[in-house]
């Protein structure tokens, strides 16, 4: 019920009943020290019950001899607190009211102005000053003034308030020592706050429900937010309060003195803050049960712890990795078929794989011979690596050598190739020597076989080389012979060419003068002389033919018979030859028939040479045929790309045994000096050479007594 009046403060004054007055008095009883609070509450009460909108309470400070403002309603608090009036001025209107103890009314200074309006927090408007007396009696000293705006009738409530407020002021004033005590307390309290604020850990005093009673600055940052604070900060504070209350309630219920962790939010930046909360319950006879909590920020500590934990995990992982690596290394080393030994700088064996163990270790109960074998191996190995251990080689260098070991069990010699390398630490210190032994027996066997193979191969190679050299020598000899032959042949040809030239010069004179005499240059000659001259002439001519034919052969053989390839129409060439030989044909009285190719037959060849061959063949036919006829035929052979000219006669014919040798130089069937037929015997030899030069051939078909057929066959294109 009592709270209803407070909550419904309306503009319509409520007549104060006994309950309202009792309420105020109860307040006075509770607040028996704080004059300002009492004055404030009194003025509020007056506003509520009497409708006084603006009022000021002034009290006498006896020590300072001042009338000071202690409370105000509807006015500036600052003005109230700053209000101070000296009591020494007895002419001052307010002081006079105080001294007279009678209420006075002050009109606005803008009114008729018969009285001076004092400067009060109420401003310049009209007000009423009511003295507050120390006691109920009318002569009791005034200890203060109540200034109310406008002129208000002295209602019973107002009169009652003046009375009780005056007595209350007197009561508080009467305890001047109490006020000093209060100041001292305030100082101590200030000191207390200063101290707890200087503590960097948040400190809070809460009631059992978790409501905040006292908090130091650090705690306020976490748990209090002003109205101006932004939304985020207010939320964070709200959350922190909730978390803290929850933590606190657990603390109270479960284990009050135990430290527990509390995760809060930093309202300034939203980061997580981890606190260790130490709470203890304090029992105060007056304030009841409270809980003091000290929060220690362990966020960094937690972080450090986590870091340590993490590092520890890493360490364990690394350790596991190293262990796995080592296991793998062991596996690898054991899987190597060659013995591997790791020795420390002192020469002691640190590690060896299974194959090495077979060589360098023996069970204690092994036979003496096995033990000796192991010792022998050990001695050999130690002497090998001693060089490395004594530092004869630099870091990274490898010592390589051969050691004669034995198989301790069987006693079989095992020559091994040892390769040892230093393991050097970062500081350059020798930490170990790793040695790998490689069984050389297989390699030696291979080397032996290879050596044999190499010997065989070398021998073979030597033989091949010898044969090749022999061949080269032979080739060289042949080559030289060929060159010599060629030179000889060329010299012969040159010689013959020169000879034929030398022959011609005198022959020219012989034939010339004979001719001149026969032409009658020296006058008419007797018939017998003329006949003799004709003998000289015909023999001279024969000699000239021989010389010309020799010249032809030497030209061909000396390669001085250049080919002049052109279109040669064989159907034209043969009649040409016939015309040239017409006088001879006419003298022979033989029938010579030419049969030309039905189609034009044009070949790519050397016209002059083809003609020379045909002339020669026809001349021979005429020479060796006495009766019958001669047939000259031109034809193309279909498939071979060749053309042929054949000369057939009904002459003496040639026996088969002579078919080949009639083409030889200076050869006739009848070689005797008394032979019947003239000619040099070079004609066919020249024809065959010329035919070859044209890429063709001359063939013979003949029967003795029946006649002969000579056929020249040449390619249609001699250039091919």
């Amino acid at each position, binding site marked *: 019920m009592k709270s209803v009046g407070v909550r419904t403060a309306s503009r319509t004054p409520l007549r104060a009943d006994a309950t309202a007055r009792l309420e105020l008095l109860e307040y006075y009883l509770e607040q028996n020290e704080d004059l300002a609070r009492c004055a404030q509450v009194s003025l509020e009460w007056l506003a509520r019950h009497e409708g006084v909108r603006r009022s000021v309470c002034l009290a006498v400070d006896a020590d300072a001899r001042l009338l000071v403002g202690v409370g105000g309603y509807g006015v500036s608090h600052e003005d109230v607190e700053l209000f101070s009036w000296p009591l020494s001025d007895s002419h001052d209107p307010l002081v006079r009211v105080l001294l007279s103890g009678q209420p006075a009314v002050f009109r606005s200074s803008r009114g008729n102005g018969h009285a001076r309006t004092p400067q009060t927090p109420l401003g310049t408007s009209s007000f009423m000053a009511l003295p507050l007396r120390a006691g109920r009696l009318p002569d009791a000293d005034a200890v203060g003034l109540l200034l109310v705006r406008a002129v208000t009738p002295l209602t019973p409530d107002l009169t009652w308030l003046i009375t009780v407020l005056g007595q209350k002021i007197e009561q508080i004033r009467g305890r001047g020592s109490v006020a000093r005590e209060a100041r001292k307390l305030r100082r101590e309290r200030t000191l207390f706050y200063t101290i707890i604020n200087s503590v960097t850990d948040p400190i809070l005093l809460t009631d059992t429900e978790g409501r905040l009673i006292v908090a130091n600055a650090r705690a306020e940052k976490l748990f209090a937010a002003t109205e101006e604070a932004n939304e985020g900060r207010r939320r964070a504070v709200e959350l922190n309060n909730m978390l803290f209350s929850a933590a606190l309630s657990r603390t109270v219920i479960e284990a009050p003195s135990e430290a527990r962790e509390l995760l809060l939010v930093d309202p300034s930046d939203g980061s997580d803050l981890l606190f260790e909360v130490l709470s203890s319950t304090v029992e105060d006879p007056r304030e009841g049960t409270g809980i003091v909590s000290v929060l220690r920020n362990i966020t960094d500590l937690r972080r450090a712890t986590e870091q340590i934990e993490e590092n520890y995990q890493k360490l364990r992982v690394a350790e596991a990795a190293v262990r796995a690596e080592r296991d793998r290394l062991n596996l690898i080393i054991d899987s190597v078929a060659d013995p591997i030994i790791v020795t420390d700088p002192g020469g002691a064996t640190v590690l060896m794989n299974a194959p090495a163990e077979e060589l360098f270790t023996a069970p204690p109960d092994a036979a003496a011979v096995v033990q000796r074998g192991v010792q022998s191996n050990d001695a050999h190995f130690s002497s090998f690596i001693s060089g490395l251990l004594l530092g004869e080689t630099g870091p990274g260098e490898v010592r390589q050598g051969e050691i004669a070991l034995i198989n301790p069990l069987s006693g079989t010699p095992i020559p091994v190739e040892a390769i040892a390398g230093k393991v050097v630490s970062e500081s350059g210190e020798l930490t170990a020597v790793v040695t790998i032994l490689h069984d050389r027996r297989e390699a030696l066997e291979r080397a032996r076989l290879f050596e044999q193979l190499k010997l065989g191969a070398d021998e073979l190679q030597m033989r091949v080389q010898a044969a090749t050299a022999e061949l080269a020598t032979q080739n060289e000899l042949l080559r030289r012979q060929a060159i010599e032959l060629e030179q000889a042949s060329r010299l012969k040809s040159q010689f013959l060419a020169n000879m034929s030239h030398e022959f011609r*010069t005198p*022959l020219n004179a012989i034939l*010339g003068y004979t*001719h001149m005499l026969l032409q009658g240059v020296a006058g008419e000659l007797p018939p017998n002389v003329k006949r003799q001259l004709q003998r000289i002439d015909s023999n001279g001519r024969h000699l000239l033919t021989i010389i010309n034919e020799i010249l032809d052969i030497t030209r061909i053989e000396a390669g001085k018979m250049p080919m002049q390839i052109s279109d040669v129409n064989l159907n034209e060439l043969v009649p040409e030859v016939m015309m040239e030989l017409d006088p001879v044909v006419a003298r022979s009285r033989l029938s010579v028939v030419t049969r030309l190719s039905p189609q034009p037959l044009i070949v790519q060849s050397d016209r002059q040479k083809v003609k020379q061959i045909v002339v020669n063949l026809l001349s021979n036919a005429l020479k060796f045929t006495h009766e019958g006829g001669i047939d000259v035929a031109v034809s193309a052979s279909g498939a071979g790309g060749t053309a042929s000219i054949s000369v057939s006669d009904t002459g003496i014919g040639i026996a088969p045994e002579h078919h080949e040798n009639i083409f030889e130089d200076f050869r006739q069937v009848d070689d005797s000096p008394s032979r019947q037929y003239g000619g040099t015997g070079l004609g066919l030899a020249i024809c065959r050479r010329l035919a070859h030069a044209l890429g063709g051939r001359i063939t013979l078909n003949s029967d003795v007594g029946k006649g002969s057929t000579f056929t020249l066959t040449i390619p249609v294109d001699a250039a091919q």
Partner: protein
Amino acid sequence: MTDQKAPLILVVDDYQDAREMYAEYLQFSGFRVAEARNGNEAVDQAFALRPDLILMDLSLPGKDGWEATRELKADERTRHIPIVALTGHALAGASDGAKKAGCDSFVTKPCLPDDLVVEVRRMLNAVKQG
């Protein structure tokens, strides 16, 4: 037998028998004839006599027939005189060499005097017509 108006032929040959034989037969055939035994004489005679034709053996001692021919054909005064080369070299290429040196015609020895006279007449006619 010689006629002042008959064409003058210079016969050049180092072989006396051949030279005199041709000279004799040319005279017998109605030509005037001068003789030279080598290339130098041939050039001198040609400048001195200005013959109507020169029969030039190519193989001559000293200045040979090819050189003498080149010399005569290079000179304004003798350039027009036809030169008939005479050679015993029947190898291919001999006639080409003679043509290149400037010879107008080429006759291979042995050459009967009659044949030579035919060639001389042919050349003189060619000059006359040209």
